[in-house]
């Protein structure tokens, strides 16, 4: 028997494996759904239980047939269901954009990059056996942070010079 926590935050069950498999088929639970199996020591995730893991659609490097593509490395072992945190990926992209969209010192991207990388880091820290991408998140955070610092410096510089300019006009 298993107890699970649905996306609404409520606990469901205990239910047997048959019903749980039906819930998987009905798209009510996912790999990240917290589950507590009878006799288990603590809560885990549904995707980490071997009896359910293969019922989910194959993840990036999953149990299905390996995609025929030279651009991807061979799948790791089927048990490693670590997925790269998409927050970390987006954070790193924002970090890179904050350095290439230089027209406004990368203004929207450095704030977004800091926010997303921060969220990614906390997500990875909270569920280290589900997500990877810590290096990406840290890189995105550093890139965005330096960019934001430069933007603030520029803003102060602009403020200072515009005040001087103002006083020359007689005000």
């Amino acid at each position, binding site marked *: 028997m298993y107890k699970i926590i649905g*996306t*609404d935050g409520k606990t*469901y069950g205990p239910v047997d494996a048959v019903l749980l498999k039906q819930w998987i088929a009905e*798209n009510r639970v996912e790999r990240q759904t917290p589950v507590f199996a009878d006799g288990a020591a603590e809560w885990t995730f549904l995707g980490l239980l071997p009896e359910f893991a293969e019922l989910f659609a194959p993840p*990036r490097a999953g149990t299905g047939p390996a995609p025929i593509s030279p651009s*991807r490395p061979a799948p790791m072992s089927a048990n490693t269901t670590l997925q790269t945190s998409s927050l970390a990926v987006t954070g*790193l992209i924002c970090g890179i954009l904050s350095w290439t969209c*230089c027209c406004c010192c990368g203004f929207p991207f450095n704030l977004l990059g800091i926010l997303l990388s921060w969220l990614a880091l906390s997500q990875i820290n909270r569920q280290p056996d589900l997500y990877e991408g810590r290096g990406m998140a840290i890189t995105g955070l550093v890139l965005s942070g330096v960019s934001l610092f430069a933007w603030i410096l*520029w803003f102060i510089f602009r403020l200072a010079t515009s005040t001087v300019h103002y006083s020359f006009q007689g005000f």
Partner: protein
Amino acid sequence: MIAPPRLNRSSALPWMAAIILGVALVMGLAVLFFFNPSTNGFYPVCLFHQWTGWNCPGCGGTRATYALLHGRFVKAFHDNALFLFCLAFGAGRAVWMGIGKLRHQPPVPWWSTWMLWSLLVLTLGFGVIRNLPGFGWLSP
């Protein structure tokens, strides 16, 4: 037995966002097509360039797009080689994924980790190299 609610993954929001972004992109390209960024002053200027005099990795991107829209590929390369490379790579990747889809191969994500890290290294490296003496052909 009460069952947990269904996961709601499909939503109209991504489509709306895609349509709005697409319209904005076409409008931006239209403005860019008719107004040369080298002679019109209303385009945003690079503050990094104004401040330091160096070219940042994105400098010349607008001019490169203008050159591309008018079919001048060599000019686009000189304006911003990285931008041109990213466009070509993205287009190639899209074609590759399209072929895979037509052949009913399992879908692959449009990015992968090594691509992102390469992009980061390329961007930083390009930003340094284009400002070195002897690499003026990489500067707009």
